[in-house]
């Protein structure tokens, strides 16, 4: 198993994959918030991106700024092969846990 990912790390990695070439900090923030159905703190996303980059699961490069950002550059992220492998492992682990059970669960609370 390459890397054990938390739920939030998975949300961030999947957001980067969904956004393709437009995966920069603020777009990732919005995508993660949309998928999780709650407001997400920019600091939480930034800390997760930094951690994923330190683990070698994502890479980043700077792009041009825009007037709404007062010209400050965007940092675009890409999921690397280790990130893809970690996501596949996470998905496999969840499927193993659910194997043999019907979803949604019914009956005893």
């Amino acid at each position, binding site marked *: 198993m390459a890397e054990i990912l938390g739920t939030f790390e998975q949300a961030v990695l999947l957001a980067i994959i969904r956004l393709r070439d437009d995966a*920069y*900090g*603020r777009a990732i*923030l*919005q995508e993660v918030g949309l998928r999780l159905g709650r407001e997400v*703190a*920019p*600091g*939480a996303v*930034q*800390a997760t991106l*930094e951690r994923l980059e330190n683990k070698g699961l994502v890479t980043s490069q*700077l792009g041009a*700024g*825009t007037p*709404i*950002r*007062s010209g*400050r*550059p*965007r*940092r675009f992220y890409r999921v690397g092969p280790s990130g893809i492998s970690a996501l596949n492992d996470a998905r496999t682990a969840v499927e193993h846990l659910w194997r043999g059970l019907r979803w949604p669960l019914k009956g005893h609370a």
Partner: protein
Amino acid sequence: MLRLFLRPDVFLSTSGDLLEQYRDSILPVRGLFRADRWYLRQVLGFALRKTLPWAALFAGAFVARFALDMLHPTTDFHTRSRVTTYTSIGLLLAAGFWTAWRSGSFLAGAAAGFATVAAASVLSIAGTAGLLAFWHDAPAMSAIAASGGLDEAFFLPAFLIVPGIVLGGIGGLVGAGAKRIWRAI
């Protein structure tokens, strides 16, 4: 403030993201006052995330000392005080050093010292109150009184704000200097 707590290579892009979110999504929906409050909260959130581990260790040292004094009373507090004091000094110097090493600015060390003590004060009050909720019989209360009383147990970390800034600043000075030397070699 963001510049103090973020690495130089991520500061511009991160502050740009925050600014874009503020101008494009938050301000039009919430209005100026609430949007400004949101912005301030996010910036404080960045500072808190960077210093929370240090604050947890700092508060942990105080709460552990309080628990020791309460559950294993002594008449000689000299050794315990020395351990607590040196642990606190070490943690604040380390917090300042680490933050300044990452950001490259010694001011980041002083800011980290302040944020560490401020967050630790809140954690320490919660931890001390939690211990008191479990142990508040007569022997425990008299042991607390003998070791400095409830006031000291609850509020001592908050009185360390200024030493926190100074020690964080010293750690920051060393951290920023070490970073420059590291870059040069």
